[in-house]
């Protein structure tokens, strides 16, 4: 996971201010947890959805900087959303972080092959997710 680079120690740096993030997970509790972590990273949550096709529609409409996607979702899986976003030039630049309860090598490889920038296995440490979000969005010029 090359994206796991040391993030700035500050709680909210100017890097992440105004960064817009889309959160998609069919589990309400986890969606809420991810939303909290994204806010902890200093980013703005532009949308929080529970299925793949809604995530895709919202991503096309909002063009967020980062999409945090669960892999197994109804409508379209995280991997399918990932492929679709990469295929469309308008959305190809969106950073993607995949979350999955499957943690095998095959799962990681499938996620990265679909075009994800990073992959995080469930259960994840909230602090780890915060760091990932910062790392992925800090590279993006605000």
């Amino acid at each position: 996971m090359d994206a796991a680079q040391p993030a700035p120690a500050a709680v909210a740096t100017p890097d992440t201010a105004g960064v817009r993030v889309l959160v998609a997970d069919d589990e309400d509790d986890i969606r809420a947890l991810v939303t909290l972590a994204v806010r902890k990273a200093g980013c703005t949550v532009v949308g929080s959805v529970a299925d793949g096709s809604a995530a895709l529609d919202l991503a096309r409409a909002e063009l967020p900087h980062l999409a945090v996607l669960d892999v197994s979702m109804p409508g379209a899986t995280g991997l399918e959303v990932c492929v679709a976003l990469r295929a469309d030039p308008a959305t190809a630049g969106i950073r993607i972080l995949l979350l999955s309860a499957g943690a095998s090598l095959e799962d990681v490889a499938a996620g990265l092959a679909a075009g994800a920038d990073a992959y995080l296995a469930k259960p994840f440490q909230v602090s780890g997710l915060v760091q990932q979000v910062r790392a992925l969005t800090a590279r993006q010029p605000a």
Partner: protein
Amino acid sequence: MTAVEVGPAVLGHPTPRRFGRLTALFSGQSTVLDRSLPSTVLFAVAALLLGTGTLPVADGELVLAGLASAFLATLVARLVTQPAVAGDLALVVPLVHLGAVGLLSAGTGSAGVLFLLLGPVLTLVATPGRRGVLVAALGTAGALLLPELLASSTAPGTSLPGALLLGPLAVGLGGLGVNEGARRLAGQAARIERLENERAVLLAQVQTRADELDQATRMLAARAQTMTSVIDAVTEQSIIGTDRDGVIRVWNPGAEKMLGLPRPEVVRKRSILEFHLPEELEAVSEEDGSATGLAALVHAAQEHGSDVRDWTYVAADGQQRTVSVAITPRTDDQGAHAGWNFVGTDMTEARATERMKDQFVSLISHELRTPLTSILGYLELVLEDEEQPLTDEQRSFLTTVERNADRLLRLVGDLLFTAQVDAGRFTLKPEDVDLATVVRSAEESVRVTAAAAGVGIVVDVPAGGLVVPGDAVRLGQACDNLVSNAVKFTPDGGQVTLTLRTAWQTPDGAVYTDARPDAAPVAQLAVSDTGIGIPSTEQGKLFTRFFRASTAQKNAVPGVGLGLAITKAITTAHGGMLDLVSAEGAGTTFTLTLPL
């Protein structure tokens, strides 16, 4: 193979009777009685002739003496049975008969009785050897002379000196001829008998051979019948035999059932390839670099002598079955390659069940991880919330919740991992792993627990590290299992020692601490404790999933019995070995050996 039984009729083949009689007469084997019978019969005729008056009686005493001596001699011959005495009697009895003829000749005064000479003379000349001829000539002379001698004592005068000379001479010469003829006849008879005996022996041999052949044929037929009935009894496995070109020659009821075609429609009419998927054979041929078709099917069996793997069989109705097929080459009685055997077990349902189990475990582990993600995530938020700090008690309680959630998570991981090992889907991510770092981090992870339990840990690893090829995460898991086990099973005041060093392993698997010419270097990690130990009777079962040693249960050491099974699986996947030495009450040492 049972011995060939030879009936008594074969061994006891009798010599034909007709030859026996003939050869016995001329080879001197007949009894004295047999030989004197013709003479005796002639005497009886003479007695009859005398009695009826056909022959004149001149001197009644001499006639009586003659007849009496003749019958007496026959009687003696009748009584004597011993062969030794019989030999001499063979000459004596006819001689007495000759004397009796002489007496009769004198007693009747008639030459008519001389026909009686014929019997004893023939008997004598027919006796083997020339002696009989001489005795016959002399006896004849005596018989002819006797009347003269008796007559001269009473009334001398009339004599026939010419007859006295000519009679014995004729008897001698004729006798020689008869004797020679008899000798030749006896020789021929003996030869005939010998040939007859040889023929009988040959006949017996031929009969024996024929019986053996018959027996062997029956046994072969029985064996073939046994083989056929065994093959025919197999109804749940397909047994298919082909020639070298793949044309089917053997097709058992199991094959009929599995592939839906009766034997007559298949044997010599179809190729084994008609029941395989061409694309599957194509894929195998690409993988093995072999030719396509039959060559691809039997490639591995040809290379290794046998091959067992799953193939897809296509039944007559087009239905596809997953079949575990054992392929072996078949040889003929000369040892030459004759074809191929395919023994198949339908695994369609079994494989489907395996897939379902696999999917089930994945689903369960996914479903368990999802709530655990929330539990652990929110716990972290509460525990790390600096704005609303917890009381010490609250923190302690929630830490307990967190620890148990972690334990549940590990269990889910272990279950999933064991299922992956079972399904053969356990893959390693190979890289260079420094085992010294792995050991140190394992020690770090148990340091707090060990300190709380009063267990000391000594780490002895090479300062420069020890790098092995392997999967860092899995090796870490294996090492963590061994170290946490050692701490768990060691009572207060005990010690756990982690020793990592380079060792040398010979091809037979033995590991030495010093370098040896034929040994390969290996990394050896010994995890020793001074704990409760494992009873020797349970050590063999220790790596079995869900097995827990009685000492573990007795001492209420927590665990489910997956750790060592997983550690063993990881070690095996790395081409390494996991051994243990343990004494109950004294401690346990696990030794993990990995190739460098």
